[in-house]
């Protein structure tokens, strides 16, 4: 059953549910933030339109910096500007930032503990026809392993907008993962959002699906279908990968006794790994990690690729059935 305190989009399960890329929410968030906080600056690496920073650049040209195709410089100039009191949002595609400039982020941003906000757009295989070189499916792992770094993977554009604004308020390095393609708008203005706090969107007691990014929507569809089959599923939107909301996750492990994680990311090092690290040490229960199985992406239409790589409602349902079987064997 939907959690009515999550105030999700009333059209959630309808065909005409609005779809918006999460990068759009980021662009809108930046405009709001620009007005609220004069210290916010935006750095761009020759991708102003597709990372949605163009409107900010036009409105606040004196707070916009064009770096050209130079992602390493992007990270470290960002660090320098933060050292001088600014709150830099450094923007590119996730494969290039934080992909190419990981060590600059590690040392000059995280080890220095500068409040630089790394914005990685075009994450996931849903990038589509550009192919594997442009599909970041390792970025959560890359960022999660860094001390100081806060890692956020919003479920839709509105959540991306909220995250963009909230990030400025924490005096730490942050990573925001964004999608190129349209994703269903599942939340509303009233949906709670707090960095570090996972939200229960669907109530259930037999099993829990913990999802992040656009997979939250697919998890909800799976939960609805399973409910019709008499299986009671809890769905958690885990938008903050680090710091992980261990409390909510351990509670789900204790109360439902089986977990499935879903992410548009390699199965190594992302949400599934983060959850596994916690539950295996604190409250072991059966766990299925759904994600990309140690391979590169490829060209194709976004939906075709999600299908090919097993990021589907059917595969989530299959994962749920698998952990339920494991759970019943343990009893």
């Amino acid at each position: 059953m939907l959690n009515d305190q999550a105030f999700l989009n009333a059209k959630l399960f309808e065909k005409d549910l609005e779809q918006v890329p999460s990068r759009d929410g980021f662009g809108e968030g930046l405009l709001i933030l620009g007005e609220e906080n004069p210290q916010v600056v935006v750095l761009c690496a020759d991708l102003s339109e597709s990372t949605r920073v163009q409107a900010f650049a036009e409105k606040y040209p004196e707070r916009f910096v064009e770096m050209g195709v130079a992602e390493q410089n992007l990270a470290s100039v960002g660090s320098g500007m933060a050292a001088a009191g600014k709150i830099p949002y450094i923007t590119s595609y996730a494969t290039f930032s934080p992909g190419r400039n990981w060590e600059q982020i590690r040392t000059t941003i995280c080890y220095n503990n500068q409040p630089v906000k790394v914005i990685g757009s075009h994450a996931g295989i849903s990038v589509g026809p550009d192919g594997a070189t442009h599909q970041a499916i390792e970025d959560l792992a890359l960022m999660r392993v860094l001390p100081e770094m806060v890692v956020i993977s919003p479920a839709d554009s509105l959540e991306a907008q909220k995250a963009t604004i909230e990030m400025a308020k924490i005096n730490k390095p942050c990573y925001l993962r964004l999608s190129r393609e349209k994703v269903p708008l599942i939340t509303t203005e009233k949906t709670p959002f707090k960095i570090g706090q996972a939200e229960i969107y669907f109530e259930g007691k037999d099993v829990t699906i913990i999802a992040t990014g656009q997979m939250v929507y697919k998890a909800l569809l799976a939960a609805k279908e399973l409910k019709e089959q008499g299986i009671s599923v809890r769905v958690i939107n885990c938008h903050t990968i680090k710091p992980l909301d261990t409390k909510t996750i351990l509670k789900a492990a204790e109360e439902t006794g089986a977990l499935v994680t879903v992410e548009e990311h390699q199965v190594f090092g992302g949400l599934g790994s983060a959850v596994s690290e916690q539950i295996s040490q604190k409250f072991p229960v059966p766990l299925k990690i759904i994600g990309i199985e140690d391979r590169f992406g490829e060209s194709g239409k976004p939906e075709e690729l999600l299908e090919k790589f097993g990021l589907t409602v059917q595969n989530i349902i299959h994962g749920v059935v698998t952990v339920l079987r494991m759970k019943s064997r343990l009893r």
Partner: protein
Amino acid sequence: MSLTAQKIKELEETADLIRQDIISMLLEAGSGHSAGPLGMADIFTALYFQILQVDPKKPEWEERDRLVLSNGHICPVLYATMARVGYFPLSELKTLRKLGSRLQGHPHRGSLPGLETTSGPLGSGLSQACGMALAGLRDGVKWRVVCLLSDAEQDCGNTWEAALFAGKYKLHNLTALIDRNNIQIDGFTEDIMPLEPLKEKYEAFGWHVLEIDGHNFEAIISAFEEAKTIFEKPTLIIAHTIPGKGVDFMEGKFEWHGKPPNQEEAKKALHELRTLQGKIRSEHQ
């Protein structure tokens, strides 16, 4: 070596066909890059039909020249040229960017025989070309390395690391060519990140530098010939090209960097190419 007028005419005709292929492929794919590929069609034609020692029927031939395409986003022109010269059937061009295609949105070495490397992320090609050239020099091989770069790749620090390296090791078996079309995604290169004086920068790094008109076959071919005669330095050819070349409404416009033509635009573009921008009155002439 001087080219006969007949040979030049043949090359021009081939380049025009390749431009038509590019338009048709992009229309069919529904995404991809238009300006760069059209601008580089003459250079690709000259390379594969005249300059490079390669055998399309034996893509793994040990003695082949190595072509490294660093700015992978212009791969429609690479694929179209490879098909025209016989690496694979022309009919395969329409699979560009589709699920299961060997013609990935950005070139992937493992997907298509004849590709020396994977590219798309800018700024990594020159280093790989340097590695091949150094290994080749040390082994005393005859084959040469050609590396194609875009002008926006001159923003990348990695490109300059490689430029220093090539100077240090005097990689005279390496010829790099920059597509100097003055555009990148956010605008004109000199507005986004000024590069000039580009020639002097490379000269200071120990390169022999030539500047040519990238649409003049004689100039393209003689520049690569000259590179073979320089024994102390790597050679850089700065090729001045017109992005979108051959299609009037695309020429010189950075807006056409990364989008395909729609049905209507493709029709117009193909008509222009078939009539050589009005030089021929009827498409069937």
